[in-house]
């Protein structure tokens, strides 16, 4: 049975989703991790593969290769700017975005940024293109600020996304997360999304939640994982139950299978 919930995006509804998140902690143990690893090992791969919620939502179909652009850079810069604003409340979002971009450019100029990194891409941009990147990042950071300011519970900004290397399966899972809300002993994760949720948004959220649980040092799953689509004014959530975690893991493995088939088809 799915625990997917759909709500309109308002501060009250978001707080209500946090308030009503299930009690009790569900944890993934070593057996779960071994079982997942065995399943991924069963899907042979010649190269290191990366699976995330986006590839699950696309049912493993190949997408265009990643390249930096104002829309792909906005989350990284916007989240970092939001982190600056949270630690220095006197800072405005626009200033925080500019500081973040300046830091990335300095890193690139000093030779610390590797080729293909965000800093190195930014350093190749013209002045107006950099302005456009700032504009996109500002929109993102403002949406995140609006969401966080309405929360009645303590929250923190994760230092990074959740990454989990599946042992001996040459597979890295990446779970995106933008805010962690602390409620008693449990945690609720919020992920900000652009656009409107599609039919596969639920499986995407479950995958993110499963990866977050796998990346947790004790395997403890978030009590609830909330996807927030400000452009559509929609909130979707899934609960950290064992059945949802299993469904999330199944989707991740299926995605790896489809990716492998697609690679074999291209090779043939």
């Amino acid at each position: 049975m799915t625990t997917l919930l759909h709500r309109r995006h308002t501060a009250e509804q978001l707080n209500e989703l946090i308030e009503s998140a299930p009690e009790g902690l569900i944890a993934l143990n070593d057996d779960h991790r071994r079982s997942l690893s065995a399943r991924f090992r069963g899907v042979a791969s010649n190269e290191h593969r990366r699976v995330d919620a986006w590839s699950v939502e696309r049912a493993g179909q190949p997408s265009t290769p990643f390249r930096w652009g104002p829309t792909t850079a906005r989350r990284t810069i916007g989240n970092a700017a939001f982190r600056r604003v949270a630690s220095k409340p006197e800072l405005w979002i626009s200033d925080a975005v500019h500081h973040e971009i300046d830091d990335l450019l300095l890193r690139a100029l000093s030779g610390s940024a590797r080729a293909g990194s965000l800093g190195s891409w930014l350093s190749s941009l013209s002045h107006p293109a950099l302005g456009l990147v700032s504009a996109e990042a500002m929109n993102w950071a403002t949406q995140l600020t609006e969401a966080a300011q309405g929360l009645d519970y303590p929250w923190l900004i994760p230092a990074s996304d959740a990454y989990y290397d599946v042992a001996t399966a040459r597979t890295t899972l990446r779970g995106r997360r933008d805010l962690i809300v602390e409620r008693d002993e449990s945690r609720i994760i919020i992920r900000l999304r652009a656009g409107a949720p599609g039919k596969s948004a639920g499986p995407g959220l479950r995958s993110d939640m499963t990866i977050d649980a796998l990346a947790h040092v004790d395997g403890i799953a978030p009590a609830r994982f909330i996807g927030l689509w400000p452009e559509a004014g929609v909130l979707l959530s899934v609960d950290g139950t064992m059945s949802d975690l299993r469904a999330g893991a199944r989707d991740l493995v299926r995605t790896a299978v489809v990716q492998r088939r697609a690679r074999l088809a291209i090779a043939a």
Partner: protein
Amino acid sequence: MTLLLPSSPLNVVDALRGDRAARPLANLTSASGLRAQLEDGIYEIIGKSNPDSPLIVRASSLRQSATTTDLSFSAIGRIRGVLINQLLRLHCVGEHVDNAFEEAVDAWRAEVGANELHSRLEQMDDDERARLATDVTAHSVTLLRSLGPLPSRWMPRSTVRATQRLAAGNVVLRDVIDLMMGMNDAHSACVVLLDVTTSPLDEAAERTMRYHALVETLRTSIVPLRTSVFSTATGELWSAGVDHELLTRSCHEVLHAVDQLWKSQ
């Protein structure tokens, strides 16, 4: 003798800000009624049938008229509109613009890459390109002079997209607001919406203003403070406080657009 003032006595941002003490309380209750009104109206139009593809309503759907041709919909008009929007985005983040046309083209290239309009721009001969550059520069002077500085505390953001699905996804309202300022607050109405057009203002611009307010209300469930439209062709600003009557009127206009789209399917 004609004297050109360095700046107009009241800029657009000051006009949008208005009197802080006179702001109405946040209206958190209208959105559900408007949504119900739209759902009922759409049911009367399309009934239980399912269109092959969703009927997509945009601000431009409310602008177009079967009996008139709007020159702003020509390729050159659209390119000019896109470039002015890029300049607005750069102004929004405090970027100083020296060469309006070239910098707008640069920003546009970074945003979308290759597309039909972009190819049209690339195919222009030198004369056409020079005419467009002059046109864009003239519009940008009007825009930047009239707009005034955008204070960071107003949290200005540009090209804010919104999507609303109605009638089980059979009708989709899509909108892009050129400039949005202020943050939603549970106590008083704070959000201001601004549409920037390179055409002179007319009745269609009013419908666009109302549409922005409606979609924003449906998206956030909070009625914005003000919705406005600014013409870089004439330097005119039309601004209206958002109330229930304005939103209801926009609902009727959206339903009319849905009816037209349904009949044309």
